[in-house]
């Protein structure tokens, strides 16, 4: 794993890999924020959409 990461860091895919990780992290944080917010939601709302 470490060797693979070193290869990516040294190669031309560095920007792509970094961008993809950031994108995934932002999505994960947004999802966790939604989950966190939902834990304080106790109103009678849900959807048949």
């Amino acid at each position: 794993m470490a060797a693979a990461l070193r290869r990516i860091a040294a190669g031309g895919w560095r920007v792509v890999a970094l961008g993809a990780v950031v994108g995934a992290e932002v999505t994960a944080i947004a999802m966790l924020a939604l989950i966190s917010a939902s834990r304080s939601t106790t109103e009678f709302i849900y959807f048949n959409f």
Partner: protein
Amino acid sequence: MSRTLTTLLAAALGAALLLMVLEAALRLLPVQNGLAGDDPSPDWPTHRLRSDVHYTFSDAWDLRNVHRGVTNNMGYVAPFPYRPGSDGIAVVGNSFIEGLMNRYEETLQGQLARLLPDAPAMLNFGVSGASLADYIGLGPMVSRRFRVRWAVVVVVAGDFVDGFTPPPGYFGWNAGNAPPVQLRPQPVCSGAASLLTCTEKLVRLLAIVRYTRGNLRFDLRHFLHTSVKGAPRPCVPEGLQAGDADLLAAYADRLPAAYGVPPERVILVFDADRAELYRSHGMSTSTSCPTRDSVARNALAAAAASRGEHVIDMGPVFAAYFKATGGRLDYSPIDWHWNAAGHRLAAAEVARIMRLGAPETERTPGPP
């Protein structure tokens, strides 16, 4: 390609890959599924679920309280079809009566059928998001299609004020009509329908969308509301506004006729303030801070009773149960809908009135 554009495209790819992984994982889990609204039809233009669908219900982020069930030929949650022209007892309400969070046999209508085995079919017309306006607006549609013997209407918090802001496919208040409601048309994805309408139908196929909206209860309006909410505000007692009293009087007047039954065949079941019940250790079930909605519901109860309709206040019943057993009547604090105990107590009260009510509760021959 510039470095910035490459980074942005890579970020989008990373986000998409993670969403695909989440989608795959959620498809293996019991996230809400099958709970989609059907298109309106000319003879049934209000919101209902898609018919003959096996659905999955679960609640909250951790998918608790999983229940599976079916919708029937009319798109309501019932394990049997509704036959046009047949006798029936209409049970009307919102998500409390729709009852996705309980097994059908545990719901008010399911338990009524067990308590009154000789009664006509219990026709559940509960839909999530309905309000008082829907309960009366449905009446003429139901009574045109079925021979209604009793109308049971379950009234809960928010039912009056929610009628002023109906979503598409639901009835809202209109004092100029008789009964005093008007349907807000529901857009259909056909012909010149908006892109949004059709897109919604497609995205609800995604498990991640169903999880976010159904389980996490994410709603942009609600999200914005809670994000600016600060500390609890002090109580400012409210009352009825201009026109409310007339609206409620007209409601009580028109409700029996809407279902084609006499006033003594209407049973209004009023939920109690269960949060107050638990806070006060069973000593009180009345709202500590009156709101326009709570005052309106009390006024409706008084108006209905004065016209000969049956009114059940679940407050004392729930309080007695809570004091005796310490058990809750709902799934609070995550979900305040009635649990099996809440439905059982309500069904017992309704059945008691129906047994006193009349031999006509017994099944009469249906159409050929």
